[in-house]
C-alpha cells in the first residue's frame, strides 16, 4: 500500500536529530519506522508516523523543513526470500528503488514490513498488491492512502 512518509531536513551536527525527536516526544508522537540518509553536511530523517499531516504541522511549527513523501509499504512474510520476491518483481518492471528501510516489528505480528521509495509509485503499488502484472495506465483512486499505520 501507499503510505505518507515525513521527510525532515536535519543538519549533520550533534544534537540536531535530538531536537526533532524531542519535539515528537513532547507531542506524544510514536515513530513507526525511520531511516536517515546523510552527507557530511546534512541528513534527511525519514519517519512513518500516524496522522502524518498533523505531525507535519507540529514539526513545521517547531521550525523544521518537512515534506510529505508518498512511499510504498510492503508487508512480507517473515521468512527467507520474502523481500527478494517483491524486489525482483519491481526490478523486472524496470522500477528503481531509491531507498528502503524496515518498519518496527510488532510482537503480535507474524509479518515484517518495509518502506520503499520508488520512481514509479503507482505501478509498483499495483505490482506488489497483485492487481497488475503489466504497466497499463492506471488511475489512482481517491482517499486510498491510509492515515494510520498501526
Amino acid at each position: 500500500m501507499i503510505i505518507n512518509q515525513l521527510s525532515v531536513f536535519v543538519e549533520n551536527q550533534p544534537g540536531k536529530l535530538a531536537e526533532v525527536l524531542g519535539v515528537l516526544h513532547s507531542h506524544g508522537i510514536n515513530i513507526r519506522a525511520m531511516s536517515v540518509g546523510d552527507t557530511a553536511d546534512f541528513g534527511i530523517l525519514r519517519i512513518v508516523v500516524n496522522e502524518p499531516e498533523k505531525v507535519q504541522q507540529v514539526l513545521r511549527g517547531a521550525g523544521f523543513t518537512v515534506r510529505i513523501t508518498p512511499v510504498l509499504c510492503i508487508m512480507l512474510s517473515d521468512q527467507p526470500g520474502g523481500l527478494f520476491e517483491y524486489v525482483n518483481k519491481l526490478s523486472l518492471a524496470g522500477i528503481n528503488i531509491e531507498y528502503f528501510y524496515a518498519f518496527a516489528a510488532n510482537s503480535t505480528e507474524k509479518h515484517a514490513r518495509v518502506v520503499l521509495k520508488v520512481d514509479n509509485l503507482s505501478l509498483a503499488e499495483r505490482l506488489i498488491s497483485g492487481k497488475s502484472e503489466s504497466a497499463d495506465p492506471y488511475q489512482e483512486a481517491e482517499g486510498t492512502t491510509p492515515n494510520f499505520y498501526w
Partner: protein
Amino acid sequence: MNTYWNKPAETMEREDMSALQTGRLKEIVARLYRQQPFYRSKMQEIGLLPEDIVTLADIQKLPFVYKQDMRDNYPYGLFAAPMSEIIRVHASSGTTGRPTVVGYTKRDIGIWSEVAARSLVAAGLSKQSCIQIAYGYGLFTGGLGIHYGAELLGASVIPISSGNTARQIMLMKDFGTTALACTPSYALYIAETMREMGVDPRETSLRTGIFGAEPWTERMRKEIESQLGIKAMDIYGLSEIIGPGVAIECSVQDGLHISEDHFYPEIINPVTGEVLPDGEKGELVLTTLTKEGMPMLRYRTRDLSVLQREKCACGRTLVRMSKVLGRSDDMLIIRGVNVFPSQVENVLLSISNTTPHYQLIVERKDNLDHLTVLVELTEEMFTDEVRGLEVLEAKIKGELSSTLSVSAAVRLVGPKTIERSEGKAKRVIDKREL
C-alpha cells in the same frame, strides 16, 4: 636615493599643482557637458553650467557618480569618445550579471602606462628590474596595467598571469625575478608554497613586491616581508578610474602618493556627501582630470581612507592617501574579486523563486580567501532525496561561481539557524583578520 619617473609632476609645488588641476577640471567638465549625454543631463538636472566651475573647490557643485550609473548605462553609456577612438576595453564583475565596463583611448593607455611606471619607480624598481606579473591578465585591469607601466619603464617583464604556483616559483628562480606583482594574499600563498617546495626566498633575486587589488593590513605586510625577505609595497587603483597606478607607496611607506595631476581626490562623509578636511577619515572620491575614453567626475570609490598633503620625506609633493581602511558599502573583496551579498541573493532567487536566508562566511586558510555560503533550506527547495539536495547544492555552487567569478562552497542549513539581528539575517561574517 630619490628617483622619480616624472620628477616635475611628482615634486610639483602645491600652488602649481592646484593651478594645473583647476585648468584640467574646467576643461574636462566643459568637454563632458558638450559631448557626453550622461554628464550633460546630470548637470542640467541641477542647473549647472561649465562656467560655474571656476576654482578647484567648485568641484563640490558636481553630482557624484556611482557604480550603479555604470550598470544603468551598460555597456558604453559613460564613454566620452567614439568607439573608433577606443583602443581597449576592460570590465569587472557586476552584481546582476552585468559587468562594469571601462574604455581607453590611445592617450588613456599612455596616461595609465605613465602612472604605472611612476608607481613602479616609487616602489623602488628600475630598468634593471625583472618583474614577474602574477596579476590576472584579461578583462581584469591588474595584469595589463602593470605590464604597460613596466614596459614603459624598460624593466624586463614576465607576463605569467595568476595561478600555477609551482611554475611561478620555478620561473622566479630560473629567470632571476627581482620584483613580484600580485595580490598580497597570493604573495603569502607563494611564500608558503616555496617553503613546501624547499625553496628559500632569500636565495632568489626577489627584492620587491608590488601588491594590491585587495585590502591588506600592516600586519600582513610584516608577514609577507619576513616570509619572503622583500619590501612589500602597496599599490592602489580601480578600473573605474584607470586600474593599478592611481596611487603608490614610496620607500617611506607612510601613505600612498596619488598621481593627482591625473586623478583629483576628495574625502567625503559617505552619509552626507560633505567634503571633509585633510586628516579626517571618509570615503575616497576620485575625478579623472585627463582621461578621454571614460572620464569620471566625482566617482564614489566606497573605499575609506584619509588624505594628507604635507611633502613626503621621499621628496614627492603628491598628496598621500592612507592604506584603504575599509569600505563604506557591503562589498567584499575575495581573492581580488568584488563580491556583493546582493549577487548571492539574486542567484538564490533565480534558483528557488524565493529568497532564502543566507550568510556569507569569508575565511583565510593557507593565506587564501575562502567563501562559504550558508543557505537556509526552504520547503520549496527541499526534496526527500539526499541526491536531490546534493544536486541543488552543486547547482547553487555552480551559479554562484559563475556570477561571482570566485568559487564558493555551499552548505544547506535548517530554517532559522542563521543568526538574526532585528529580524534580518546577518549577511556577512568576515573572519579574515585584516
